């Protein structure tokens, strides 16, 4: 039962990811949102690789364990780059791009060093533990960065509908993912919580595909409509 549910969620997520790439090519926005597309292409590639390794070596093999954790770290890095590309879109007109890249690299290096410092103290196998911890820490950094980006969107009175929806969807995704990770740690005995994170994984490609399909780059919205408390 759990195997079929996992497979269903996996196929569903892959279909949405492919839909986003196809949709952005059809809407002639592939290069404009290159890093978002790159993330989904990497996710698709990772899914196929994991599936092949799983069928060859089995779920409890060291090969699958390595492939899973390293590909997870790679995907988190790709998502981090996608987030920074959204920053570049929002701050692009303010000529902040150079400082933005520098800050992003410094933050990434800081997270990696912090993770290494934490993992080096444990007696676990260093390489897989590092990949796992790096993923988790980057998710948390991603959540904080998305929150800051959302603040900037409101402050700068961003009007581009597509960009606003992309940032909001990413914020929802990061928050839901972080909450589900925490829930897994809180309720390890309940098997239902293990399906929550993959289900949220389907949300991001679905939401971005809908946004890409429905809104053009020229679509605009009034920034005042986004602020929950009227000013």
């Amino acid at each position: 039962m759990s195997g079929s549910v996992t497979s269903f969620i996996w196929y569903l997520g892959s279909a949405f990811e492919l839909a986003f790439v196809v949709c952005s090519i059809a809407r002639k926005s592939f290069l404009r949102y290159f890093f978002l597309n790159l993330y989904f292409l990497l996710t698709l590639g990772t899914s196929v690789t994991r599936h092949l390794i799983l069928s060859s070596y089995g779920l409890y093999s060291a090969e699958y364990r390595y492939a899973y954790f390293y590909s997870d770290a790679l995907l988190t890095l790709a998502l981090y780059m996608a987030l920074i590309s959204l920053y570049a879109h929002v701050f692009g007109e303010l000529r902040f791009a150079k400082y933005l890249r520098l800050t992003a690299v410094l933050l990434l290096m800081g997270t990696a060093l912090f993770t290494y410092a934490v993992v080096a103290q444990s007696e676990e196998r260093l390489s897989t533990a590092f990949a796992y911890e790096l993923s988790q820490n980057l998710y948390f950094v991603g959540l904080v960065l998305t929150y800051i980006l959302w603040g900037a969107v409101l402050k700068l009175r961003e009007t581009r509908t597509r960009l606003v929806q992309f940032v909001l969807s990413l914020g929802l995704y990061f928050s839901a993912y972080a909450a589900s990770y925490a829930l897994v740690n809180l309720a390890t005995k309940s098997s239902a919580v293990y399906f929550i994170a993959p289900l949220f994984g389907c949300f991001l490609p679905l939401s971005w595909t809908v946004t890409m399909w429905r809104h053009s780059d020229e679509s605009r919205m009034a920034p005042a409509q986004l602020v929950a408390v009227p000013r």
Partner: protein
Amino acid sequence: MMAAFIFVVSLATLLMFFVSYCRSLMASSLRHTLSKEVRDVTGIPASASGRDFAKIMQLLQLCPERPDDRTDLHSVEIYYGILGLLEKTIARFMPALHLWTEQERAGCANFAAVILDRRIAFSREILAQQGEF
């Protein structure tokens, strides 16, 4: 302890992003003028109030669905539910919050009315196409 803290913080940011997400969906309906037909069917005079939402949702179930508005409508329905819960609990003791929830609920009802308007137009199109054959 740390997991519980992360869980609470994540839920708070999730709620904040969800509210903004729903508001961005509802923003598209603000410029839409409701047709006379929808106003007659729903009994909404000029702008919808929060209490109209349930009635409009019932009417929406009678219309054929348009695939592109289904997910948006579900999101706004959840948002309306959260606002209702807020109104029945904390907002009772805070007049400013009560006013805000009522405005938001009216926005949800207006969004649903716009979807109803579009679905009626969609049904008309289908009927017209069938009539051509």
